[in-house]
């Protein structure tokens, strides 16, 4: 009676061994491999190749491309646009990081404190802001800020602090255009952070708060000593995600401003897109895209390293 067990175990072990040498996983993974090679691997190789080519309209129609070495890269770093564009991209990602993560933390803490009807109301408006597709949100923004019928201009006029805003065009100065874009992105972006943090915050055991209160800690003290340490990992994660997303922003700016006025809202992504698809200089656009991806990799190197390390336990 005691025999079957060891036999079964050995049998199981041997099966696992045969399973690991079977071709099944290869067949199962083959379609995904094909898709990823065709839609990611090959395009990335081609991106790098074309960044070393003079790939313009002529190449597009006649198929003639010439190698130009690092010329496209030299063009980037010697361009008068490079530093302003880089600075803008960083400043925008930084501003979004501070605003969305800050507001998200505040909203999540607030959700813990509100009574049920208020919490539900806040949840509903946040989910809607988050769920509405970017294109819709951007078109609504355009309508909100539309002179002279936009309700925002009407509200500002009503406030009476800035005078008559009825005909104010938000697309004439880069500063105004940035305000519009940033408000849009923060409106769309803060809810995700608020919900993610709230999910984390509601996991914190009650006892920790009770202990802190017995020690006589105040509200802010409790937040910094109990809540924040618990949320730190999540805050780190959503911060990295925010940086990646906002660094790569495209749709909102392109639809609202096309990178204008006078290039004032051109970020790295918009710059690359303009060079490639408006200027028909695909080589130059590719080089900018490579530089953008490189900067983003440097920025998130820590995070990526952690991901790779977590890959050890996958």
């Amino acid at each position, binding site marked *: 009676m005691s025999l079957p067990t060891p036999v079964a175990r050995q049998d199981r072990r041997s099966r696992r061994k045969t399973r690991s040498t079977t071709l099944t996983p290869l067949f199962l993974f083959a379609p995904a491999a094909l*898709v990823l090679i065709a*839609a990611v691997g090959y395009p990335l190789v081609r991106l790098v190749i074309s960044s070393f080519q003079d790939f313009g309209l002529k190449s597009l129609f006649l198929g003639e491309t010439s190698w130009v070495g690092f010329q496209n890269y030299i063009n980037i770093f010697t361009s008068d646009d490079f530093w302003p564009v880089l600075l803008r991209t960083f400043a925008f990602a930084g501003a979004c990081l501070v605003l969305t993560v800050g507001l998200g933390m505040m909203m999540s803490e*607030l959700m813990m404190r*509100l009574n049920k009807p208020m919490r539900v109301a806040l949840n509903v*408006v946040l*989910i809607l802001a988050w769920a509405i*597709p970017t294109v819709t949100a951007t078109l609504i923004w355009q309508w909100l800020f539309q002179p002279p*019928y936009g309700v925002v201009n009407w509200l500002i006029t009503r406030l009476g602090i800035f005078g008559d805003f009825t005909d104010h065009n938000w697309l004439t100065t880069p500063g105004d255009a940035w305000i519009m874009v940033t408000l849009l992105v923060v409106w769309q972006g803060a*809810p995700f952070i608020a919900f993610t943090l709230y999910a984390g915050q509601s996991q914190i055991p009650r006892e920790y708060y009770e202990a802190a209160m017995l020690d006589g800690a105040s509200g802010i003290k409790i937040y910094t000593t109990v809540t924040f340490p618990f949320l730190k990992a999540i805050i780190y994660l959503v911060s990295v995600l925010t940086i990646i997303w906002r660094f790569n922003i495209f*749709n909102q700016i392109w639809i609202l401003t096309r990178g204008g006025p006078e290039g004032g809202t051109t970020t790295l992504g918009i710059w690359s897109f303009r060079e490639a698809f408006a200027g028909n200089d695909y080589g130059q656009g590719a080089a900018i895209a490579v530089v953008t991806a490189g900067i983003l990799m440097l920025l998130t190197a820590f995070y990526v390293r952690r991901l790779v390390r977590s890959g050890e336990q996958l």
Partner: protein
Amino acid sequence: MSVPLAAKRRRRSFRSRGPGAHILGLLLVLIWGFPTYWMLNSAFKTPDKLTSVEPEFFPSPLSLEAFIRAFLKPGFLTSLGNSLLIALIVVLASIAVGFLATAALTRFRFFGRKAILVTILAIQMIPSIALLIPLFLTFRDANMLNTYWALALAYLASALPFAIWVLRGFFQSIPEEIDEAARLDGAGDLRVLWSIYFPLVLPGLISTAVFTFIEAWNDYIMAYILLQEQAKYTLPVWLVSFNQDTGIDYGGLIAASVLFSIPVVVFFLLVQRNLVAGMSGGAVKG
């Protein structure tokens, strides 16, 4: 006795459900709700009310005229059909391919498995502009611009890694003993895939389908570049091009945007919880 009482009193002061939090809460509800409210308010107005000097905060008369105009706009129904078709292709492809690939990655040990998983994570960090330029050039060479296959493949580049990442969690929660029991009963690989894994990861496949649908439905930039014929436009591209016409019919545009958003909002409400978990679980596409 005095200590718990004091604690209770302090607890009331900390996390007070007092007026301060509720005033701030109300303010946030008003600010964050305003754009959505204004969208709906504008969509139900008649054209003359939409462009009145004093904006009206409630549509009176409540009119469906803008929605009817949206439906009758040239191209709306065509782009709606295009959007549905492309989303359907991408959803089916990503759950089918993702299901098989995740089964391979989680239920079998083979050389390169970890490297593949890390690559799949890393892919999600590539800016879409970096793929857009080479995909455009490649599809142009292959004469595939203006085809749904090209667009579907471009969407799969981001949908598939995400699908694999979401499904991974579902596959990992299936105990190994279940496969072994099935195999002892003589079930082959296909049988295990279909009769064991498929029903058990079905909830994961449904969330994956929803995520993928949202991503394909919402995309603007890929479709804008890869589809250049008006008859092939998806809804977002159509909406934006419509927006750039002179003398825009804002009422019709906003009503069309509302119609375009409804499926996404409904799906979002269904999977909101999973979305928080899925996004923070390592998937990083914006």
